[in-house]
């Protein structure tokens, strides 16, 4: 079975600054794949490359077995949908109009939807729990509600591969959990492949089928959470002391940050022992 996303040895630079260096990995179909790493590790650039927004200098990305470069813009959009980190706050359209716009790559010039499109939109809005918000304007919603609307839009655009760039970054705890559950439901119920960038290592550990750990644009580790989230690897990548044990919720790694005052071996040694 062909992979959903095949990243083969890509490199990307902004001017002289190397952002991604010879990155290779594979995302299987129906997988919940999470990319983690410290700030500046190139996570956002990587996801934008998969979405076709950035063009890597070397290497190749295959989407569902075909090189990304061979896809027309609209054809690619029908397969890959992106929920970017910053969604516009002052967007004047209503939630249902916004979600409907997700169907654009499937529609003609004026974006006039058919009955089946409307039905899909209603379904997806119910699935993401925003049906009551249908006639409210995006600019009047809270952060969490807005995020769900744009996720719904992405799902309407493509239910094959969904990319999310730090979707939980500014959300309340409750919304964070809801979003991750939603992604898992999409994976299980609709067979979607989820590729997510996250800064929250613990959430990643609880949901990911496989992880990719980046640092300074290079792949440090990839594989199942238990294999990737070891304290040697994490300490090397994040440069701080961490405690890795087993989560009380089940067979998942749990990462605890150990700040200086608890750490007799702390390098930041404000207290000498």
């Amino acid at each position, binding site marked *: 079975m062909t992979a959903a996303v095949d990243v083969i040895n890509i490199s990307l630079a902004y001017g002289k600054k190397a952002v991604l260096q010879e990155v290779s990995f594979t995302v299987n179909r129906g997988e919940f794949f999470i990319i983690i790493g410290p700030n500046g590790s190139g996570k956002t650039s990587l996801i934008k490359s998969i979405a076709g927004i950035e063009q890597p200098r070397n290497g190749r990305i295959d989407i569902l077995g075909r090189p990304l470069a061979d896809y027309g813009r609209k054809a690619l*959009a029908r397969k890959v949908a992106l929920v*970017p980190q910053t969604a516009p706050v002052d967007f004047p359209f209503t939630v249902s109009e916004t979600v409907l*716009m997700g169907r654009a790559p499937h529609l003609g010039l004026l974006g006039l939807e058919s009955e089946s499109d409307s039905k899909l939109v209603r379904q997806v809005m119910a699935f993401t729990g925003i049906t009551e918000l249908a006639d409210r304007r995006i600019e009047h919603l809270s952060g969490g509600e807005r995020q769900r609307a744009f996720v719904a839009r992405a799902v309407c655009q493509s239910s094959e591969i969904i990319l999310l760039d730090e979707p939980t970054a500014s959300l309340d705890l409750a919304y964070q959990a809801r979003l991750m559950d939603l992604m898992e439901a999409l994976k299980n119920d609709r067979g979607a492949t989820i590729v997510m960038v996250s800064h929250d290592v613990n959430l990643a550990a609880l949901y990911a089928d496989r992880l990719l750990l980046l640092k300074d644009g290079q792949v440090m580790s990839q594989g199942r959470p238990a294999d990737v989230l070891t304290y040697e690897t994490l300490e090397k990548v994040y440069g701080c002391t961490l405690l890795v044990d087993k989560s009380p919720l089940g067979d998942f790694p749990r990462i605890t940050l150990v700040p200086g005052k608890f750490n007799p071996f702390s390098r930041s040694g404000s207290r000498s022992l």
Partner: protein
Amino acid sequence: MTARPHPVLLRLAVVSALLLLALTAALVMGLSLGSTQAGLDAIIKTLLGRSPSEPMLQAIIWHIRFPRVLLAALVGAAMSVGGLVFQALLRNPLAEPYILGISGGSAIGAIIGIILGFSRFPGVTVMAFAGSMCTLVLVMIISSGQRILKKDALLLAGVMVNAFCSAVIMFLVSMTQDARLHNIIFWLMGDMSMTDLRQVGILSAILIPGFILIFCLSHAMNMLLMGREMAISMGLQLKTITLTLLVATSFMVSATVSQCGLIGFVGLVIPHLLRMVLGPDHRVLVPACILGGGAYMVFCDLLARTLPQQGEMPAGVITALIGAPLFIILLKRSNR
């Protein structure tokens, strides 16, 4: 399967019908009223073509007023659509059709044409058009860099170029004496009084395809509001669409300005007014701006030439005097 009319198309049809009615009413008023008075029945007879005994009224209405109201409608439509497109492209509510240096460049071109003694048409018109195309290219060159067509760079470059052009214009004006100075000032204030059907025909040949093109891109404009990344990821050919909208709209606005001078304020206010009433969907707004903007301009031009006792006011003064309070009223009402 019941064939139900698509809701957007239905809205489009209703809005267009209403505004078309308004435009027609404005056109009829524009033809019937002017600096010379005539009896109502004489006017009606002339409009319906049953008046062989009033040749002078015929000449006035069809040779003088008719080209003028047509031009006013085209100007209002072009300016409104221009403002709408730039507001979407630059994602800035203060954007208006002159913002990318078009007013500065066309004014300099026109002034040079007037100083050199060219006649209004085609001499000064062509010079004005050439001038605005030059400033447009200048703005695009200045703002190109890492991200070509990045919206803030465009905006800033446009403002700077316009400011520079203002200085040049003031210099040229200060150096001119006698009757040419008058001509320059009238051009700068906007002047639709000396047009004929040939000029109107040329302008509509440029504008009508432009309107159609922009209408076809109206859904893309909706999506543009989501931001660069989302627009690309939704399948928009962002560079192509942005460049097409930019060039087509600038071309249309330049062609319009070179015929009628600098009539301002329409392109800023009408899109906002219509958006407040009709919502943000450009598929409805584009035709609304064409018809509504046209009706508004015809009406303002009518006031401009009938209100003053002697002579006529610049049409741009009327558009500002009416547009600004209207806008403020609607703004307050929408805030509640």
